[in-house]
């Protein structure tokens, strides 16, 4: 497969400075054809690396409960933004939009996570007026 070899030669010529984003290939993990929109109660916030995982109970219309795991950012980055282990306590209601895992399990990446009052979770201000900025609910 010449295409593959060509790509690898490009790779070797591109400088590997180790400055990669240090993330999985999310396209390999989650499915762009399977968007999800979930609303549930946090049962556990697992501050693990490389990504924190939020465990939520999603109650369906029929009253059945599905247990989902939502992938968040790295605790290290979140903690330095001023968030703490108190930031997302069990019992908190959250809404999540994201994409489901390719393996079909009840796992999704937490693209957009909002609290019951509409505040977007974990977003902080970067200070340069970029369009994506939001006022952060900074808790210490």
């Amino acid at each position, binding site marked *: 497969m010449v295409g593959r070899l060509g790509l690898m030669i490009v790779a070797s010529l591109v400088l590997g400075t180790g400055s990669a984003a240090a993330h999985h290939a999310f396209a390999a993990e989650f499915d762009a054809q399977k968007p999800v929109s979930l609303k549930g109660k946090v049962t556990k916030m697992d501050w693990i690396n490389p990504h924190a995982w939020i465990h939520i109970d999603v109650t369906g219309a029929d009253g059945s409960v599905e247990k989902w795991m939502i992938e968040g950012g790295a605790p290290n980055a979140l*903690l330095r933004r001023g968030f703490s*282990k108190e930031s997302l306590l069990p019992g908190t209601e959250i809404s999540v939009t994201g994409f489901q895992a390719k393996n079909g399990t009840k796992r999704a990446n937490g693209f957009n996570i909002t609290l019951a009052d509409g505040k977007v979770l974990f977003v902080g201000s970067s200070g340069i007026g970029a369009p994506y900025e939001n006022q952060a609910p900074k808790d210490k």
Partner: protein
Amino acid sequence: MTRFWQGLGTGLVVVCAAASADRWAAPLLAQAPGFKAPRTSWGDGKPDLSGIWQALGTANWNLEDHAAYGAPAAVLAVAGTVAAAPGGFGFVDGPIPYKPEALKQRQHNFENRWTLDPELKCYQAGLPRATYLPYPFQILQSNNKILVTYEYAKSSRTIHMDKKVAAPVPQYMGQSNGRWEGDSLVVEVTDFRDESWFDRAGNFHSDALKVTERFTLTSPYHMLYEATIDDAKTFTRPWKITVPLYKRIERNVQLMEFNCVPFSEDMIYGQWKRR
């Protein structure tokens, strides 16, 4: 020379008395007579614990008294003698005082140790286990921090000496804050995650674990390590692990790189490999 024999005689008396009662009753076991720990070179008056240290014995195989035992047949078929646990006397002050439900969990862990033990997966070992793994570790004693770095899984922890530093979130290696009590370094380790074990035999803990460690130099080449385990969710009372540590004295000795992640991937991810 006479003093040496006198000291040895005293030592023997102490050891004999201890042997007939609790092995660990004499806290300064095997202390060389007249020994005073060397001080740091910069004059803060503290004992200098710097160096490369390693435990001997079978604490990592099994903290309690045990005769030699094997492993499941499938493991023995591949690894033979290397998979067998050598016999050993315990490094604990009696049988570990589990609550009844927790004891059942320990039994389950033991029976499934060849799939469940986090050491097999190159997970950071937590404390106190990192101290008595069969790999050396290095203490770097600086003026305001003491860094302990473990060859296994390139793990490490900073012991804060200048001020108390709280843990942001639970960690595999917990959070270490230390102080001096006489010539002993006392470290409070808190905020553990619950996935680590205390040994290969399935002894475990919950996220309520708190460990109080004492490091005491007892000769130029020995250090006594004591770890009190406090975990009310798992045990009926606190209990103690005592492990002598031996200085690695080879010329130019240094820790080697032991990045064990690649050695654990078959075990962890093998079931999802494309066939």
